[in-house]
């Protein structure tokens, strides 16, 4: 039996930034979603045959994601403000972007070092202070939790 706690990664009204991690394959994938299914819903889409995580991982390693047996997902709820939860994604993209670039700057110093395999797209919202503050807190949390992931 496998027990996976997912109740804190979807609630029909929140938006999230999430991070998939496999230390075994030294890969990190950063994404964002405001979909009804939250991070769980996106996870399903990611592992489908044409899912973006599957495709990015295959591009990076030439193997399917199943070859890594230690995938973990870190979920970071975004503020429940319309600019984060609405259909316009520029604020979510901005947080996602800053988390990706932040990880890129430090990835060589992590153990193990890793690749950021998600596609990165800059958003003009990146310079807004609240966006930067959210990204900074996510990066701090990742820095704290990364060594504890086994």
């Amino acid at each position, binding site marked *: 039996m496998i027990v996976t706690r997912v109740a804190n990664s979807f609630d029909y009204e929140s938006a999230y930034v999430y991070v998939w991690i496999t230390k075994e394959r030294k890969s990190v994938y950063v994404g964002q979603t405001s979909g009804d299914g939250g991070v769980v819903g996106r996870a399903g889409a990611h592992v489908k045959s044409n899912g973006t995580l599957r495709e990015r991982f295959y591009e990076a390693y030439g193997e399917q994601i199943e070859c890594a047996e230690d995938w973990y997902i870190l979920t970071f709820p975004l503020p429940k403000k319309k600019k984060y939860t*609405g259909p316009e994604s520029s604020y979510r993209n901005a947080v996602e972007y800053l988390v990706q670039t932040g990880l890129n700057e430090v990835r060589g110093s992590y153990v193990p070092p890793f690749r950021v395999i998600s596609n*990165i797209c800059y958003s003009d*919202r990146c310079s807004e202070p609240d966006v930067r503050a959210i990204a900074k807190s996510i990066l701090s949390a990742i820095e704290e939790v990364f060594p504890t992931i086994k």
Partner: protein
Amino acid sequence: MSTVNLGWNPKRVLFGLSRIGYTPHSAIADIVDNSVTNGAKNVFIKIQKVREDLSDSRKNNIKDYLIIDDGVGMDDEGILAALELGSDQLQYGDESLSKFGLGLKSAAFSQGSMLEVISSSGEGFLKYVVDLDSIDSQYFCEKKDLTDDDKKIIDDYLSEGRGTIVRISKIHTNNHPSPKNTIDELLYRLGTIYYYFIRDGVRIELNGEGIEPYDVLFTGEAEEAGNLNEHDWDGRSVAWIKKPTSQTLDIDSSPAVQAVVEVTQLPHPPTFSLDGEGEQERIRKKYKIGAGNYGFYVYRNKRLISWAERFDGLIPQDQDFYAFRGRILLDSSADNPFNIDVKKSHLVLSEEAWNALSDLSDEYKRKSKKAWQHAAAVKKQMLGEEPNTISNDIAAILDLPDHMPGAPLLDPDEEKEQERREDEIKSKIKEKIRREAQEARAAAGDSGEPTEDEVASLGTGGAEGKYKKIFRVSAIEDNLLWEPYFDDDHGWSVRINRGHRYARCLFEDNSENTDMQVMVELFLLQCAQAEIALRRSISLDSADVEEVIRSYRESVSNLLVQMVRRSDIQLPPLG
């Protein structure tokens, strides 16, 4: 298993080595590498002509190239190792600029057939010569006595009895570049190639003229101007796009390849045409802004190895990137993963490094391009050609009428009630903008009250000029496309969220379409004024109207986002 020794033909190999693409300036720069690596504090480059009476512009008139340095110098063993092909790489330290032990020979023979090395480590000068014309099946050098000319050079430049002279003579005469061509290139390029060394005290002199360090990023000016704000840059200053930051480019090699990456935005030359004739050209020349100079300048061990590198399209060929200057600082650990070549003038990124740099550059490129376009828009604005200026010129007389077309006339009491409602709306708008200014301060870690200027600037997006009514602002609450606005200076106006997906499609993707932008801006101004007219209308419930119209604006804004995001339709520009 048995092995069979294979022969080699020195003459043909040396010929091949001399044809790997050196120009006189790149060959000389490669030899200067040896001087710098060997601790020279002074390097003297002399380009001597065959016929001194002929102009410097004359081709095929070089007698010899001399590179003289006061570095540690070499004894017999050292000189012979330097002349060997593929000298043992282990002699090179981590900080060395050398790589394969081929640079001196390939650089020298690319320009002439004779290479002379005269050197002393303090025990007296020794001279060895390789003459390609004598090389056939054997590779060898000859030990020779110093000539009077050699002794004079030593007296003039190396009076302390230590250092090295490299002379390249028997210069190829097949369309060999003129002295002027090489001198001009060297004056410009050596300052860039050895920027860090010259800055740190190494003196390089070319035909008696000292070479100044040339910082292609103009970081000193960037320090004064600070970080680039692409939304309000006027094109007149150098600004930081990315201050120096250590980045991991490749984790597959051991150790991982780290690089320091920094990027600046240089000025926008067309803006300076507003200052008078010749100013645009002056700026272009000062910052060397042009097709061959934008991109990344890659340094290995602080020596430039790649000039304005665009990494196979990573920085696109596009005039809007002319002000983009990046610098990547690598050390020797990048040599193998990045395939740095013999003449140290080119590198090929590993796939992972290319991807990492591509990810990093996404932001830099967008900022640079947006800033360039903004500067162009500011210039247009100064000339009265910018769409928002045209919209505002038209809007200047479009005040919200006291009486809407087709509405019944109001009696004095009703007029008073309408005025009261208007005042209430004005207060709400003012309070909302003040709250947003406070939130912006709080997000930046400042809990103080916003100043009146801050509030006004947030409301109008920093726009100057009291006559304006249409403001392109960076954000609107809940990411709506537009909202009505009022302040005493501007009257009833509209704020347009230029970061909204639809606005970006309109203002950026269709930046050349002035007419469309003007029409949409005027339409949104009228929408905003119509909203106020309804909210103040005494025949309607003010709170209900406010709620309905806000929801309406939200729905329109969201539907427009979805429309722009659809991949199955094509929006303008259609051409």
